[in-house]
């Protein structure tokens, strides 16, 4: 397989107006991936499938990632005039980064026997801009896996032929794999509670005691 930089350059040349970004993985595995922008995703996918040197004909795995909103604190030295004297004062600046949901595709080529190529797509935020283009029209095998991501993370795949919940029931409203999922409080009986479960059990009993 050609290097990712080269693939990115060729895709950007072949699909006008599309912008790809290399997401570097610094861990020992070094599995770098390509972040594609939502608008041209379908065209990029078609190119990756049909290009003679790439021929990614098999999407082996599609999964979701939840990146919650983060607040990072930075301490900045600011010059201020205090009581007529200029001093350097520490000031903390809170930087809020909105979270997003991510769909990750692992592509292989059966024909040329190479891969994986890892594609990422990110939603605008975690609340209402959760639409991503479905790649099921390009790789049919994505159908159930995109349904699973929809079920567990709440990403809306536009252009998906049959976007319904697949694991949970249709009446279910939550997205259980999101980091801020609140599970139902059914800790009334935990015979061997420890660690996290023990905490939840204690909380449940405190609530029960205050209710009665």
């Amino acid at each position, binding site marked *: 397989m050609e290097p990712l930089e080269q693939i990115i350059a060729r895709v950007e040349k072949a699909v006008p107006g599309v912008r790809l970004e290399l997401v570097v993985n610094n861990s020992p595995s070094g599995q770098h991936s390509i972040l594609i922008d939502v608008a041209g995703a379908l065209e990029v996918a078609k190119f990756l499938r049909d290009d003679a040197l790439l021929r990614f004909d098999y999407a082996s795995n599609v999964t979701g990632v939840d990146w919650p909103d983060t607040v990072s604190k930075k301490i900045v030295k600011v010059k201020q005039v205090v009581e007529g004297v200029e001093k350097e004062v520490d000031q903390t600046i809170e930087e809020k980064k909105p979270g997003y949901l991510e769909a990750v595709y692992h592509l292989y080529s059966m024909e040329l026997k190479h891969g994986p190529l890892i594609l990422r797509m990110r939603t605008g935020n975690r609340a209402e801009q959760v639409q991503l283009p479905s790649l099921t029209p390009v790789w049919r095998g994505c159908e159930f896996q995109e349904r699973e991501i929809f079920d567990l993370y709440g990403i809306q795949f536009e252009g998906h032929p049959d976007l319904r919940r697949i694991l949970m029931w249709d009446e*279910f*409203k939550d997205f259980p794999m999101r980091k801020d999922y609140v599970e*139902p409080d059914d800790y009334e009986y*935990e015979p061997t509670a420890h660690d996290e479960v023990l905490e939840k059990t204690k909380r449940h009993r405190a609530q029960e005691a205050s209710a009665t």
Partner: protein
Amino acid sequence: MIDPELRSELKKQGVFTTSFEELYNWGRKNSIWPLGFGLACCAIEMIATSMARWDLARFGAEVFRPSPRQADLMIVAGTVTKKMAPQVVRLYNQMPEPKYVIAMGACAISGGPFKQGYNVLKGIDRYIPVDVHIPGCPPRPEALLHAFMTLQQKIDGQALTGPERPRHLVSEMPSEFPVPQFGEHDLEPPSNPAVWRPPLAAKA
């Protein structure tokens, strides 16, 4: 009731005496027909139990019925997901009385390794009355045979009349149990308080 000493004396003389209750329970306990359904890996052990090596036929229970209308026993073999729980309760409701339930394996009795998950029921005994619980992940076929023998003992000891008679002979007791509904966050209700109450010891 016949005096047991007289009865054993008669037996030595070649006269066999019995009561209708004994005869009835003897017939019932030796022809427990299970409902043929499995939910996860425990079902493989259940199938193994019914095959030649463990030979469930010795207990008269090899006829796994494909219809709940013909079954006496429900072996809940495997993980009961919250999505599957209403169907399990519905199948139980469709079985004719007298009916019994064996909860086989860690998942069926408590949720097992998936207990803290969002999609697994913490034991089928929250919705239907369970007669025998088998721990294990999965339990060996011997454990299922032991559960069968435990159930046979239970059936053998059931009186047909009097205050100790089993649930299915008391007309006020329910033979059907409410099927849980799919809610927005969990099953509704999360358990049937008429069947299951959190054990008191755990609260102390």
